[in-house]
Structures are given as C-alpha cells and as structure tokens.
C-alpha cells in the first residue's frame, strides 16, 4: 500500500536528479502492472487521481510537474501527436513490449492523463501494426489508461444523461474493436470498466452484451480454422485437404516432400511438395472408370483459411452419359422376398410410399462427374501434377490406361515463381505416355 508513497519518492528523486520523469517511471509502472494486481492498482490510483485534482489548487506545484504539463500542453493534442508517439517507438521494432512501453510512457507522463481519449483511439488504430490486436491483456492495459472514478456518475441526474459522453464512446469503441477481433473480455476488463465508468454505463452495457453473445457464438462454426496455421506447407496441405474432403476414411498420401537437390551440373533443383487425398470410395469409383474416357486434372482452385489462400487440384471425370450407366444387376434370388437367406432386401409390392409420408424434397439434381482425388502441390505445373498422377497409379493401376488431360489455369503468383523449366529428364519420361494419349482438340493443355 505504500506504492504511491514510493512513486512520490521517485518523483522527488527525479526532481533532484533532474532527469526527465518519463525515463524513471516505466519500471515502477511495470511493477505496478504485474498481472493480478489490477484491483489494487485501481485502488492505488485513487490517491494519485485525487492529487491530480488537487494539484491545480495546490500552491506548491513542483517545477517538474509543471514542465511535464507544459510539455503536454506544448504538443498539439491531436491524433497525430499520439500516432507520432507510436511511430517513434516503433522505429526499430513493433512488438507487444514496444506497444506496452508507449502506453506506459503515456500513463506516467502526465498524472492527469490529459488527452487519453485521443491516445486510446490512436492506440486502437495502431494495434494491428504491433500485432497485439488479439491480446486481451493489451486491451486491458489500454482501458487502464482511463482515469478511475472520475467518470462514474454520482447522482441520478448524471446517471440519467450521458455522463462524459466522449469517454464512454471511447470505451465502447475499444470494446467494439475487441469484438471485431473476436476477443472475449475477461473479469479484469469488467473490474476496470466498473471502476472507470460505473456499473450502469454504456461501456458496461456493451461489455454485458458481448458477454451474452460471444460465448453463444464461440463454437458456431462446426469447421473451425485455427488462428495460427501450420507453417510447414505439407502440414498446411494436410490440414486443408482433410478440411475439403468431408470423409473420415479419406487417406492423405504425401507423394513428395519438399526438398532441394543439387544436380551434377551444380544446378539447384527444387522439388515441390505433393500431398494428395483420396477416400476408399473414390478409389473404387476410379477403378470402375471407363478407360476410353479421359480424366481431367483441374485447378488451381482457391481455398481460404482465414487470411491465407491455398490452392488445390482435382482429378475428375465428366459425368457418365446415361447410355453408359449400367444398372446394378439385381438378383431376385439374393434380394427378393421369400428368397433371401436372411431377410428380403426389397418387397414385391405394387405400392408406393404415400404422399403424406414422403418427406423428400424436390431437388433438381445437377449431374456432376465424379471427383477421384485431390491434391495440393508446391507448384501448379503439369510436371509436378503428373508426378501426383503417377503416384496415384500405385493404388489405382487403371489410371495408367486412362488418358489424363491437364486443364490448368495460370495459377497464383506464388505457385508460378519456380519456373517450369526445372524439369528433370526422368520426369519428362514419366509424363510422356500420359501426354501421348491426350485428345488435344479443344482442350487447353498447358505445357
């Protein structure tokens, strides 16, 4: 409880030493703000606050305080100043520590926290730059910049009207930014809000609404994407492919790990990663594919994972024309009534389901061709993808007899950076037989 006294003492020492107060106070501030001491801190600030109020009437204002005040007064109290503060701090690095330092500097610079609303607005704007926009502790720290108890309405008239509207708006704005980034306030936030604005203020209401809706929506997405995606491209591909292929049986195969080889001539050859996914059902479908009809490798198609875009490729075929579809032959002895060994698979009745019990929707089905497999690769060129196809051939030998057509669109830049020229001869040999069989007409074959 003697921290304020300590603080005063530091101020005194600072006065004697003649050092600028900003440099001395941060460590103390840091000491004050160790997590868990927020409660105390709020209480501790009270004497400080009082002193600030009193200070105007106090005749013996210290010269230092005056200078600090003058300094703040000198500066234009506009947004630019505070932006400046951040910019100056962030000249070399932009980290959470830097951000916290700036906030600390501001808090300790002026005991009256003059211009704190502008400062908070500026800080909110700068948060994404410092990468702290998802950090609840930083938000709490920013809230802490508000002086405590001043804005709490003291009588019913104040309570009736919008007490300190700008400050309340600022508080709401801060909470709104948290909301937009999906950050859930915690108890600390609540305590701070109660101390700053009182129990029935607008920011408090905002807090309550957030706390009502946020937990309800937290797990609304049945397919959550983590905030931090795996950095390893193979892991990322694995994650994305399982996300698209909604089949728990689907198996991921890594056809090639990313690697860099140095050939005899000293050239560096990049081997891109190739990760594919195929379910057993897809495998059986592919095995039944009519070899006289081509299959297509298509892509790249985008998949957005929060702010990252990845691309995938499909191995698909055209829908089977109706004249070729063979009805599964139905052996009456095996399935029919009074015939089946265990129980009839169907009844021989001339009765359909009654309309009142037919809950099927009338859906207009668009016939689509089967998708046999999917992959993600470090490069979207044909050479890489034909490696994928030859990898698939190991489990589906029939793929060797099926003409494979590559219908690749010019992919995104990052996929194209490594040039197509880096083909090794053996890869070409591998792809050759496949290309031979291509019906070249009308298909845009990308070489």
């Amino acid at each position, binding site marked *: 409880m003697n921290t304020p006294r300590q603080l005063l003492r530091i101020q005194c020492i600072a006065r004697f030493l003649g050092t600028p107060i900003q440099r001395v106070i941060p460590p103390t501030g840091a000491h004050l703000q160790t997590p868990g001491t927020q409660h105390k801190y709020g209480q501790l600030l009270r004497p400080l606050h009082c002193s600030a109020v009193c200070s105007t009437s106090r005749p013996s204002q210290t010269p230092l305080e005056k200078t600090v005040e003058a300094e703040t007064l000198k500066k234009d109290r506009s947004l630019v100043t505070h932006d400046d503060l951040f910019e100056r701090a962030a000249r070399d690095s932009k980290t959470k520590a830097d951000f916290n330092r700036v906030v600390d500097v501001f808090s300790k610079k002026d005991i009256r926290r003059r211009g704190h609303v502008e400062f908070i607005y500026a800080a909110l704007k700068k948060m994404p730059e410092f990468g702290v926009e998802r950090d609840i502790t930083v938000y709490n720290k920013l809230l802490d910049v508000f002086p405590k108890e001043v804005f709490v309405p003291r009588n019913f008239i104040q309570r009736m009207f919008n007490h300190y509207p700008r400050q309340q708006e600022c508080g709401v704005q801060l909470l709104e930014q948290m909301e937009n980034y999906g950050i*859930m306030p*915690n108890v600390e936030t609540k305590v701070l809000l109660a101390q700053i604005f009182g129990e029935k203020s607008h920011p408090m209401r905002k807090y309550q609404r957030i*706390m009502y809706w*946020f*937990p309800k929506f*937290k*797990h609304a997405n049945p397919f959550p994407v983590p905030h931090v995606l795996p950095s390893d491209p193979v892991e990322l591909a694995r994650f994305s492919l399982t996300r698209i292929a909604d089949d*728990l049986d689907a198996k991921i195969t890594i056809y090639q790990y990313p690697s860099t080889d140095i050939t005899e001539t000293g050239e560096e050859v990049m081997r891109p990663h190739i990760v594919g996914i195929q379910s057993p059902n897809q495998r059986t479908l592919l095995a039944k594919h009519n070899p006289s009809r081509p299959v297509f490798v298509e892509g790249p198609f985008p998949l957005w994972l929060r702010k990252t875009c990845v691309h995938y490729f499909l191995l698909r075929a055209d829908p089977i024309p109706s004249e070729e579809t063979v009805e599964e032959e139905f*052996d009456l*002895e*095996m*399935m029919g*009534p*009074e*015939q*089946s*060994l*265990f*129980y*009839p*698979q*169907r*009844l*021989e*009745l*001339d*009765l*359909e*389901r*009654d309309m*009142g*019990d037919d809950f099927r929707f009338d859906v207009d089905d668009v016939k689509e061709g089967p998708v046999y497999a999917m992959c993600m690769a470090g490069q979207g060129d044909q050479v890489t993808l034909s490696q994928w196809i030859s990898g698939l051939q190991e489990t589906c030998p029939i793929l060797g007899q099926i003409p494979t057509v590559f219908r690749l669109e010019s992919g995104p830049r990052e996929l194209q950076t490594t040039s197509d020229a880096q083909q090794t001869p053996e890869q070409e040999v591998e792809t050759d037989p496949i290309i031979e069989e291509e019906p070249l007409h009308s298909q845009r074959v990308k070489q």
Partner: protein
Amino acid sequence: MNVNKLFGLTRSVSFGRNVFATRVAQKGDCVHHFRSRRFIRSSARSLTYAKDLFLGKVNKAEVFPFPEISKEELEELNQLVQPVEKFFNEDVDSKKIDHEAVIPPETLNGLKELGLFGIQVPEEYGGLGLSNTMYARLGEITSLDGAIAVTLAAHQAIGLKGILIAGNDAQKAKYLPKLATGEHIAAFCLTEPGSGSDAASIQTRATLTEDGKHFLLNGTKFWISNGGWADIMTVFARTEVVDKDGEKKDKITAFIVERAFGGVTSGKPEDKLGIRGSNTCEVTFEDTKVPVENVIGEVGGGFKVAMNILNNGRFSMGSAGAGMIKRLIELTSEYAGTRKQFNRSLSEFGMIQDKFATMALNAFVMESMAYLTAGMMDRPGVPDCSLEAAMVKVFSSEGSWICVSEALQVLGGLGFTKNYPYERYLRDCRILQIFEGTNEILRMYIALTGMQYAGKILTGKIKEMKKGNVGVVFEILGKKLKDSVVKTVDFGLTGKDGVVHPSLTESAKMFEQNAAHFGSTVESLLYRYGKTIVEEQLVLKKVADVLINLYAMTAVLSRTSRSISIGLRNHDHEVLLTNTFCKDAHFKNNFLLTQLQKNSPENNDANIKKIAQEVIAKRAYVCSHPLDRTF
C-alpha cells in the same frame, strides 16, 4: 372321476381339442374340429399362423390345442432324458471346458455313446430319429453347457441338416451313418469374411473341371463352428449356371465336402468371450476336388437349401434357454432362501422376488413358444414355420440374457466371481443374440416376410382407397366406426366353442384386441409406406416386436388351456404366469402400436435417427464435456 374319464376320451380322440369340454354336446364338436384339421393336414398346408396375424386374422386351428406327443413317444423320451441328464450332471465339467477352451475327448465320447450326435437322423441311418419336439426336449439338457450345446447344434442342427433334408438317398446312405454316431463331425460353411449376414456376396467359387466330374472349390469361410475338427462340411459356393435364357449366371450351390478331399485347411480357433469350449475357426478351401455327386439338391439350388436349414433350425433355442433358466432358478433360489440380510432372508425382499418372477415368466414363455413351434413343425406336410422359429429365437435369446443377468444380480458380488457358474452362463448366452442370424436381421425377416404376405393380399384394397374409391373408403370408415363403438373384437377364442379356458378369458380378450389392432396397423403401414417400408427399420422393429409378443401370448394361452383341461400338476401357477405375461405384453403391444400410428407423440424415431446420424458423422461422442467453459 366322470369328468376325468371324459377328458381321457377326448384326448384319445383329439389330444384335447376344445379341452374344457364339460358337456357331452361339445364332444361331438371336438371331433368335428379335429376332422377339419385332419383335412387341412392332408392337403398342402396353406394355413399359416404368424403370417395371418398380419392380416388381423387368428388361425386358431393352427395353434389350439397345444401340440402333444403320444404316450409312447413320451415314455421313449423320458428314457432318453434320464441318462443324458445324469451324464450332464456328473460327467461334464463345464468350468474346465470353459477354462481350457476345449471339450475333453472323454466327454465327447460320452455324448456319442448317448447318441446325441444323431438325434434327428432317422433310425435306418443309425440315429435316434427323434422329432423336432423331442429334439427340443433334449436341447433343454444339452444347454446346461453352452460349448457342448453349440458343438452339437453346429453338427446336427445345421451341419448335417443339409444332407438330411435335401440330400439324395445315396448321399444319406454314405454320410449319415457315420455322422449319426459322431464318428464324423459336421460343420456348416456359409459365412465369409466379406459377407456376415449378406449371403449374396459369397466369394467362394466352385468351377467344374473339364471332365465334368468334379468341382474345384476355392475360397475362405469364416466363423465356422466345429471348423477345426469337422470331417464333413456343407459348403456354399458360387457356380456358373446357364439359365433358361441361355445366359450364364452365378448361383449358389451347396456341396458336401469331406476333409479327406484335400485342400482344406483350418485356421487357429478363435478366442471367444463365451462358448469357449466350442471350436470356431476359419476354413480355407484351395482347389478342393468335390465330385459332382456331392452337390446337395441341384446345382444352383443352394440358396433354398441354406434357407431351409437356417430358417427351421432356430426353434430349439427356446427350449435351450428355458432349460438354462430353470437350472438358474434352482441355483439362485437356494442362495436367496439361505442368505440373510438385515435379519431377513433375501427372498423376502420385493426386488429379489421380482427377479425370480421375471425368470419364471421368461422360462415359461420360452418353453411354450418352443414346444408350440416344434409341434407345428412336426405336423405332416412341409411346414413353413420359419417365421415362428425366428420369433422363438429372438424372444428366447433376449429373455435368456436378461434372466442370466438377473440371476447373477441376486448373488451380487459373488455372482461376478468365477467361483460361481453365473458369469460363465452370462458369457455363454451372449452368443444367442448373435449367431444363426442376429436378432436385428431376424426382426427384419419377421416383419418383412409378414409385410410381403399381407401386402400381396391388401394391395388391391389399398390402391382402391388411394384412388379415392368412395365405396371402399366408406367401407373402411364404417369398419373403423364400428370398431370404435363396439370395441369388442371376437376371434372366437373364448365363449361358446372357444378354445381358451374360461379362466384365461381376460388374457384371451387382451390378445384378441391386440391382434385386431395389429392387423389394422399393418394395413395403415402398408398404405403409408408401400414397398419402401424396407427402409423403415425402426418401424419394422416395432412390428416384429408386436408380432413376437402376440405369438408368445398365443403360446402361453394355448399351453395353459391344455394344462388346465388335462389337469397337469400346478396348472394354477401356469394360469398365474399366463395372466401376468399377457397383461404385460398387452400393455407393451399397446404402446408399440400407438408408436406406430402416424404423427404419434410417443414415437421418437426421427430423433433417434438424427442422434445416430450426428454421432456417426463425427464417429465420436458429440457433446462437449460438462465441465467445459466458453469464457
């Protein structure tokens, strides 16, 4: 005395048809009934009991009176039963069989000496030549050891049954004598790795050799009881058959395969939960040369053979279950009578009494169902009792499980130890719900077979109704109105010329009510679902359950009526059991039938399906942990 004499007379004529005849006038009636039944018997049996229930008809002639065996047969049976019972009580060490997972050869020899390997094989082939009813009676005793019961059943109920019912004389003469004595052991090879109950996906293939004298058999069969030591196997395999259009088609054919033909290898015996002493393993055929003479029936006709074997082999499970429960009642009641808790013996507590009542009821119903079905099967002609047999199997397998579990519960912790046989019985009887067609599949079979039967007859009427034929609609509305006003259904079970004893009138009325309600429910289900009812498994399950209850009620009513009429010992207890069971089943049926109504609030099927779909989509329990938090 006079009355008794009268009964004796009635029995000598008709085995107690219309059994509570107290007036001479009714005796003439009985004879008349009897004659009419004789008439039906001699024609191809067109009457069916369970199937007709789907139409809301009660063919009382089929199930009343309760079937009997003649006095000579009974005496013969009793002579057989005594040594078997003695053997099982004295010479069979079930604990050791279970522990060592093998039946010792001495025990097997003992069984062979008793002739238990050829119970149903005709005497001319060296078997005992017993009827289904008598087979069921012996099953009560053999069931005291699960492993032996399964070994015997796999040998004769399915293993050699193919030869017995569909084999030609040469095959019978060649194989049956050795099988009947137990010198050779038989097995039934149908199930495959890829096809559990889905017989359509049999992969084992038999190809005719070029000389046309042999089939080469290739494939693997799974979970073959007696597979390790069987010498003769009934194997089902695909063969190429040219049908009448000249097209080549794959059809299933049944073969008699001797292990001596070569190329037959058995896998390691499976380590099972129960019936550990029985031998279950994989059997592989590799280019096994089977002579064409060994085809059972005709080439391509294996399906029917398999169907007949399986469909009619299941009834004995009822008597087996009953035999086991009767033994358990003896064991547990002794414990409950001596064990003291809070200064009272265990048997004085209501909840313990409840368990004994459950056991007695189940044993009673199972027994009644099993012997009613066996009796129906023993009638001359080609009986089609597959539906009834399936019902017996479902009811008794589930009843046994409940009863064994209750018996174990009476002993509490002691029942859980290996010092007592309860845990072994519990493990052994778990298989009953699985083999010979799982209960789920049999329920589908029961419901769908009946639906098909009823559907064929009702299609015309329903179509007229759907077309909006005013006449038909009015007729049905009128019938419904009448039913709701009069509320009494009368199938003639009670009252004058009734077949049920008057002391069971109330129960019989309940049964009649349920039967009528069931008929109209089936009709409305056919109206609603038509042939797509195949996909409505939850509906079919309820239909099957109602039918099983109805058949069980029939069996107990029939049996008790006979018992009262001929004055069997303790028939008052039977009346008590019958009335209790019928009341219980009546309420269960009412609930099920209410659930089957359209838009019934009691029906939870849609929710049940949805829960299952969500769980299966995730392949895990879906809910978050109750201790989880979101903030």
